[in-house]
């Protein structure tokens, strides 16, 4: 596992900021009804996607969730196609059919977000088999939430991945809540990472607000997997800054808890500061980077708004073949 170079750190910061600004924009668009349906913001959890995707290659796979924009961006997803999808346009990743919860990009190894909690976990087993059969040293990262780890699919999949030594990195993003139920109440053991021992794989519990810690742990698990030693389970603790969706007032959380995470555990703020302290990035450079990213996000909205709606006639024709 190599140490992070200066350029790689800057690149991680750039991706953190991109996710942050993209998500802030999607919430605005949701509140003005340009985006509808369900939207699950990734704000607060950016470092998990960024640190983990930095530890894998372009041809590795990821399996994502309903809270998946961050994973997609970190794996190299195209902001224009993402935004167009969120606006239901024909130029979107799913031709406007899927919306927020179903974005996929096969060229980037993004095997899809998912509207079903835990729905991607068994799929990761199959991607893991592909990686193993192909013998190209590829791995699969499977993201899911604390809530998903209480579903049967989690247990079946980890057991199977372990007995067949599949090269999968299971990353549980423990943001403390399913929708309203706290993982302290919903999970029987102390740490979700502890569940690894039931499936005889390495388990880790890490601070998911720190992209370098995520990078380090995931890199280790990737190396373990590429060597043919099988899967790992990493519990990355990171808080979701918003409610479950933008209209959720999240009354089930204590104000203090929210404030603590927003002030002490903001991955974007903390990492910007860290790189500034390490003199890796200057304040002017950072400002310029933020501006540039904001422009990119804004132009993705422009692209999406200018894009055509899917054609009704074509849809009615396609339906005949389903």
């Amino acid at each position: 596992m190599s140490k992070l170079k200066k350029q790689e750190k800057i690149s991680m910061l750039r991706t953190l900021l991109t996710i942050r600004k993209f998500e802030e924009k999607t919430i605005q668009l949701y509140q003005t009804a340009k985006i509808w349906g369900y939207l699950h913001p990734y704000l607060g959890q950016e470092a998990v996607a960024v640190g983990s995707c930095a530890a894998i290659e372009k041809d590795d796979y990821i399996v994502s969730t309903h809270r998946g924009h961050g994973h997609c961006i970190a794996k190299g997803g195209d902001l224009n196609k993402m935004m167009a999808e969120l606006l239901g346009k024909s130029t979107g990743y799913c031709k406007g059919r899927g919306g927020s919860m179903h974005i996929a990009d096969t060229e980037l190894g993004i095997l899809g977000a998912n509207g079903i909690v835990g729905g991607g976990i068994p799929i990761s087993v199959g991607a893991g088999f592909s990686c193993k059969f192909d013998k190209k040293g590829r791995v699969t990262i499977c993201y899911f939430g604390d809530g998903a780890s209480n579903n049967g699919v989690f247990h079946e999949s980890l057991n199977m991945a372990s007995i067949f030594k599949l090269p999968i990195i299971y990353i549980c993003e423990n943001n403390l809540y399913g929708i309203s139920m706290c993982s302290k109440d919903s999970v029987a053991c102390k740490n979700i990472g502890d569940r690894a021992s039931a499936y005889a794989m390495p388990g880790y519990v890490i601070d998911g607000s720190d992209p370098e810690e995520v990078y380090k742990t995931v890199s280790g698990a990737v190396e373990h997997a590429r060597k043919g030693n099988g899967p790992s389970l990493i519990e990355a603790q990171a808080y979701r800054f918003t409610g479950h969706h933008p209209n959720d007032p999240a009354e089930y959380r204590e104000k203090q808890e929210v404030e603590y995470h927003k002030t002490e555990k903001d991955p974007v703020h903390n990492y910007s500061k860290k790189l500034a302290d390490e003199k890796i990035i200057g304040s002017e450079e950072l400002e310029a980077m933020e501006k540039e990213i904001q422009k990119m996000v804004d132009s993705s909205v422009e692209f999406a708004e200018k894009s055509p709606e899917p054609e009704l006639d074509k849809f009615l024709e396609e339906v005949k073949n389903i």
Partner: protein
Amino acid sequence: MREIEYREALREAVIEEMDRDPKVFLVGEDIGVYGGAFRVYKGLLDKYGPDRVVNTPISEIAIIGAGIGAALTGYRPISEIMFIDFATLAMDQIVNQAAKIRYMTGDSLNVPLVIRTQGGAGRGVAAQHSQSLEAWFYHVPGLKVVMPATPYDAKGLLKTAVREDNPVMFIEQKMIYLNKGEVPEEEYLIPFGKADIKKEGSDVTIFAYSAMVFEALKAAEQLEKEGISCEVFDPRTLVPLDEEALIESVKKTSRLVVVSEACQRGSIASDISAKVTDAAFEWLDAPIKVVAGLNTPIPYNSTLEKASTPDKKDIIDAVKGLL
């Protein structure tokens, strides 16, 4: 009469039944402080405490299993599956267990379990949150299937469901929770297998259930102005089905349009059409017309989503096609 929301009517039914029978309890995801995804159970945790309002992890199999096991041992649980799409995860418990236990055990065990859930399109929540899967349950012997359209029906039928000794799929529709309708203050029950004529008419019978009842009523209203008199027939429960009343209505009008939000392939609508053809062929003056959802996963884009389920206009066209 006072008017209340569909979800308030459901809540009232639950409160009345929980107050009447200490064996009734609730189990499901986010039904505690959150009050359920559609706030049907708002305030019930405070009122009844965590033993009777059991807020669970995201574990659909165990939510249904817990309901079955408690039902087998003297309780009357209401298990909630947040979206009917997630019932797919619990199909063993629903189909192989709940539906069959009574029969398989020679009536020695029974499963007085209500499974409350909701389905349907209209909210832009795409293919995995918008399905109309009622036919899956309709198909399985041993399950009752209830799909009320109005607050009045929702309350009266949910109370009956709680008192029913066999498993009931109680399927709501996500677009109608805030609809208001007349609900009396005094207690009432609605028996299963008793249809309700939502509007009387003489030229064509429109069979519609759940949210489609409202599209049928809108269509009937417009057609009335054009001199076409439609009878809107709401079965309210699909299993058991009030076949007698349906045949009665068809004998009167001699024409039938069957509406369903679910797509037609393998649908309840097709089955209704077959049943009526069988029982009342000689009374029909025209072929039965089915107006169903398109055979597609529900798309996210709002124009496509709207196009994929039937509306007033589709029903009007179908009715006119029969005359």
